[in-house]
């Protein structure tokens, strides 16, 4: 670093620390997403079996009528459950 740089050193964070912060966020996000598929599938299967117990939905259609999703919104993860009830129930 030259003398001029030392005298007029800007007080902003270095680009390396910005890089580290960005990586910390994206890597932890991607790690949780990678470990989730199993969890979501299991939860979906269990929710399906509960619904099948109470509602008369043909087993080949149940996959289309019950949807489980996990979405990340800012700081939170949102579990979304969408059940389309068959006409006979309403």
């Amino acid at each position, binding site marked *: 670093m030259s003398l001029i740089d030392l005298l007029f050193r800007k007080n902003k964070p270095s680009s*390396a*620390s910005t890089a580290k912060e960005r990586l910390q966020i994206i890597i932890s996000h991607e790690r949780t997403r990678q470990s989730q598929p199993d969890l979501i599938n299991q939860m979906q299967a269990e929710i399906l079996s509960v619904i099948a117990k109470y509602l008369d939905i043909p087993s080949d259609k149940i996959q289309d009528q019950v949807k489980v999703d996990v979405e990340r919104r800012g700081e939170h993860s949102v579990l979304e459950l969408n059940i389309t009830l068959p006409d006979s129930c309403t």
Partner: protein
Amino acid sequence: MAEVIVVTSGKGGVGKTTSSAALGTGLALKGYRTVVVDFDVGLRNLDLIMGCERRVVYDLVNVVKEEALLHQALIKDKRLENLFVLPASQTRDKDALDLAGVEKVIEELKTSFDYIICDSPAGIEKGAMMALYFADRAIVVTNPEVSSVRDSDRILGILASKSKRAEEKREPIREHLLVTRYSATRVERGDMLSLEDIEDLLAIPLLGVIPESQAVLRASNSGIPVTFDQESDAGQAYLDAIDRFLGHKVPMRFITTKKKGLLQRLFKSKAEETS
């Protein structure tokens, strides 16, 4: 007991092939019978880096498809008699390799070698999966740069879930971090992720740091793995990494800048400005 080592990274151009050649050479220099296998089917380059491109007759795909015997495809290094290269083919057929065929080749290699180094292609496609599937240890090559670090993390996830060891629920692959193209000057200036940053992010043990070095391009230009250039910083750094790989404690070198005199600090050198 033979060990299978995958050299991988996810991202391309970070130094997988350079490192495979350098580490293979280092292990052979230490007296181990070593073979470096190029898994980059379609884009083979290990032969060029190792300087045996004109001696390729048969390749990995020929052996897997039983069109050639293993010993016909193995190329013996001109400089070291216990170092061999198994080249990749130039075929564009993506399905040229299959797991069963690769397993057979690796099992056969295990009977006559101490170390089998698998040089992975970039990406997370089939070729990269084949290269890491049978690994006992993994060397993850990472540049101090955001996309490389992120891709390395993806690869670590794959090593932990998609390898043979993971599928058979055996002891997991031993992972090692190899940071390449490191510039201590730029780190001190705050322009490059530091070693500590990368270790923090990836959380695997550090095998070595290879400094950004002119010796690497010189080595690939002439087809002589940089480990042979023992005067060079990169060559020495690879040898240190080999010692650590073999279980020895060796302090990290080339990770700090030399302290400069007052005059040098006042007048930045031209070389530094361009680096």
